[in-house]
């Protein structure tokens, strides 16, 4: 990887090439070491590992708190993503196609959860909803995650909608389709890449979230990243490396799905190769 | 003979298995304006970019002022390039754009300003020096690009379809403008175009390209009346192709094919030209003249469809109309004899009523 980078880059520009290689090393190499240490047969987190085994993978899968947390995080991520799309797509339609005043302000409002630090939002939800209104932590987490994902739903599908020419829907109407029919048969298919992007991005964001979820944990319902974080802080064994490697593998699957459906780079917007 | 300003020796450019430029030899005469002319995709831009140093030839050598420059990076070649998109730096003023080249050459600031002013004066834009490129019209941007290229006092000025983004009137105006600048500065200019009118009007020397090869070159006065083959003839607006009795190929322009009454005696044309009996298929009114489509049998006995421009004010005889039997005359002096090679273009345009205008495929 960095060999190729350095070869193509150094030929062009030695300084830029060296910086780029350094950047890739910082981004990628620590992740590789996680994978390497996960296969250790020893009981400490060290490199090079003491022998090879799958022992820690077994332990990670058998460790109930992790497995429960996986289920909880999946539930939360799927529900929050679905809800955010369900609420966000109508908002996008209203903003882009509706005749309402203050569209810029509205869009800004729906993007605002991105601006406030997530930890601060978590604190607010903890104080006001969990302590103040005595909501249970799952409901609070769902509310918070959905609000956090709304900006993705509104912005990413909005970008697709902006590409869809309103004249197409008008053409469908002229050909005899009802407004609903025109929307479903013409506009919705054009929104598909946006919906998939927003869905994948939302799912991953929710599933990996720490700062927002951090203060909203209880014994009954804990999310995976926070559980792993706590575990690492207490003990320092290769089981987390194994769990991390499993998360990495799952993420690679998500990335492949993304590449196959809408194109990996396009998910993050602005990149059209 | 003086060394040419630039010379390509057996230069090829391959992209994968595709050969965009196929072993061409070309000499660019000093102090003259040379055009590279050819249809879209024939390799004109590729040739110019290799000359400028933006891409290295796959094989062959490039000499500039007699020195090997094949591997020289563009910044060391000192050639002024005007891009089709102009490529003006949007974050700099017009003056800074023009002064950029001198700045890279470490010319002191005052001298830089003077030179930029001079170059802008030459293109008539000195009054817009403090504008940003976005605040200029297309024609003005084009002149700035020209001034910027001239300000480095280039050994060659390279222009890639410099006029194709301008509207029709401005385009014609700029042809004369570029000629004027060329003669005032005495620069060697290489200009790429797919417009044969442009090439004919502007060139000292024109080079016709097809599929990465040079098919003909020479002064417009020499090339125009004597296209080497059918491809060049078609490209230069010859619409009518005949096989003569002796088997040779000849081309005639529609404006040189005279439509006469059917009873005109063959003797009138005893100057060695060709006389054909024909039937008028269609007559289209075009203001200055009529475009007459005819069917005839050529001297070799093939049925051919021909186009003739008929000017009612200078022609003799009645105005032709569809169904008329007429006699066609192609004077010997107007017959272009083509080399018998196989370069005949696959699509014969004789059925297209485009008359004497250029094939339009080259507009990109």
């Amino acid at each position, binding site marked *: *990887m960095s060999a190729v*980078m350095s070869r*193509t880059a150094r030929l062009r*520009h030695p*300084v*830029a090439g060296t*910086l780029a290689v350094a*950047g890739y090393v*910082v*981004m990628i190499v*620590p*992740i590789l070491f996680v994978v*390497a240490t996960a296969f250790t047969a020893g009981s400490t987190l060290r490199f*090079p590992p003491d022998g090879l085994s799958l022992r820690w993978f077994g332990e990670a899968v058998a460790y109930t708190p992790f497995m429960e947390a996986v289920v909880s995080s999946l539930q939360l991520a799927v529900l929050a993503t679905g809800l955010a799309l369900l*609420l966000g797509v109508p*908002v996008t339609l*209203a903003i882009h196609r*509706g*005749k*309402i005043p203050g569209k810029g302000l509205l869009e800004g*409002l*729906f993007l605002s*959860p991105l601006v*406030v*630090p997530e*930890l*601060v939002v978590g604190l607010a*939800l903890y*104080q006001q*909803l969990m*302590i103040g209104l005595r909501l249970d932590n799952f409901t609070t987490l769902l*509310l*918070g995650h959905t*609000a956090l994902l*709304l900006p993705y739903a509104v912005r990413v599908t909005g970008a697709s909608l902006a590409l869809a020419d309103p004249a197409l829907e008008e053409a469908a109407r002229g050909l005899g389709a009802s407004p609903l029919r025109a929307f479903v048969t013409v506009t919705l298919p054009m929104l598909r890449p946006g919906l998939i992007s927003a869905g994948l991005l939302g799912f991953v964001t929710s599933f*990996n979230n*720490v700062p927002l979820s*951090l*203060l909203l944990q209880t014994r009954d319902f804990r999310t995976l990243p926070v559980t792993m*974080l706590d575990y*690492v802080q207490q003990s320092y064994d290769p089981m*987390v490396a194994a769990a*991390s490697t499993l998360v*990495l593998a799952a*993420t690679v699957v998500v*990335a492949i799905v*993304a590449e196959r459906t809408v194109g990996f*780079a396009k998910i*993050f917007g*602005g990149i059209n*190769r | 003979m003086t060394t040419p300003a630039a010379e390509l020796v057996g230069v090829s450019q391959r992209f994968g298995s595709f050969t965009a430029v196929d072993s061409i030899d070309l000499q660019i005469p000093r102090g003259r304006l040379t055009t590279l002319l050819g249809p879209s995709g024939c390799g004109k831009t590729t040739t110019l970019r290799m000359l400028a*140093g933006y891409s290295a030839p796959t094989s062959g050598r490039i000499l500039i002022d007699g020195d090997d420059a094949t591997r020289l990076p563009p*910044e060391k070649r*000192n*050639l002024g390039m005007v891009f089709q*998109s102009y490529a003006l730096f*949007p974050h700099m003023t017009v003056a800074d754009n023009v002064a*950029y080249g001198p700045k*890279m050459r470490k010319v002191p600031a005052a001298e830089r300003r003077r030179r930029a002013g001079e170059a802008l004066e030459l293109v008539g834009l000195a009054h817009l020096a403090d504008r940003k490129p976005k605040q200029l019209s297309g024609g003005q941007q084009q002149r700035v690009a020209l001034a910027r*290229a001239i300000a480095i006092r280039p050994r060659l000025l390279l222009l890639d379809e410099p006029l194709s983004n301008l509207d029709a009137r401005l385009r014609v105006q700029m042809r004369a403008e570029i000629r004027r600048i060329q003669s005032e500065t005495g620069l060697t200019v290489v200009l790429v175009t797919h417009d044969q009118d442009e090439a004919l009007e502007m060139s000292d020397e024109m080079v016709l390209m097809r599929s990465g090869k040079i098919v003909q070159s020479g002064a417009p006065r020499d090339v125009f009346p004597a296209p080497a083959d059918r491809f060049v003839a078609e490209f230069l607006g010859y619409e009518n192709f005949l096989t003569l009795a002796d088997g040779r190929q000849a081309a005639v322009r529609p404006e040189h094919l005279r439509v006469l009454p059917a009873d005109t005696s063959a003797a009138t044309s005893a100057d060695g030209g060709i006389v054909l009996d024909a039937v008028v298929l269609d007559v289209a009114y075009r203001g200055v003249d009529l475009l007459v489509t005819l069917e005839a049998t050529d001297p070799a006995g093939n049925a051919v469809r021909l186009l003739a421009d008929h000017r009612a004010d200078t022609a003799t005889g009645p105005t032709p109309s569809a169904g008329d039997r007429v006699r066609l005359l192609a004077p010997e002096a107007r017959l272009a004899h083509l080399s018998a090679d196989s370069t005949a273009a696959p699509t014969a345009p004789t059925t297209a009523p485009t008359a004497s205008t250029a094939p339009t495929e080259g507009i990109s």
Partner: protein
Amino acid sequence: MRARSSLLLLLPGLAFLCVGFLLPAVAMLFAPPGVSFAQVLERMGAMLTDPYDLGIIWRTVRIGLIVTALCVVLGFPIASLLARSQSRWSGVLLALAIFPLLLSNVVRTFGWLVVLGSNGVIGQLLTGLGIVDEAPQLLYTELAIVLGLVQLFLPLAVITCYSAVAQVDPGLDEAARGLGASRTRAFWSVLVPLSLPGIVVAATLVFAGSVTAYTTPYLLGGSSQRMLSTQLFSYASVTVDWAAASATAIVMTVLVFLVSGISTLVGRKGATA
């Protein structure tokens, strides 16, 4: 679409946004449980004069600035090499730079424990080669936090810069070269100024992310290298000092808003200049 149906599309999303984000956020700032806003303000005043608290704020800002600078210095070369390269590898390298955005922060940060820990790669290497007798303390230092945050935010810097560079006409580079500029000259006089708006956006995102990140300072900084985020968590969850938690949240939010505001102004000025 008529105004009434637009409103109908808008309402559910708006309601959710209010309950899950806007109202709690506002309520927390002004009325944490059992504390008055005056007490929050008083606590904030104390914070801005107390050397310990000031030290945390300054460390947060300092780390944010260093990380931002590093991400731009490493990210822009990567972005410009990828955007300008015609190599078939550039797509793979781009994907590799973006992939970490999908991967859990916990997993990514955990990698540094393996690299920097007392039995970690670097320690082993240094002692193994006999360069030092005892592995130096790398973990729980500011250096560790900086490395972790650069790893976290470099992908963001890369894709933001990539979009900016991709929008600059490559013909401009060539024009500069033809006028006598070397690669380096062309880079600084054409590519950098024209990508500057994108660089400013990238810097803002990285800074805002760095000063609010939790996982990295928690795992790599420990209790000796507190940042605003870890401090906030400790007030909210360990000492349960609502006034201090709210005050810290306000400081953090103001910091982020301040930098976003400045960058918007800079961007606007750049656009009109």
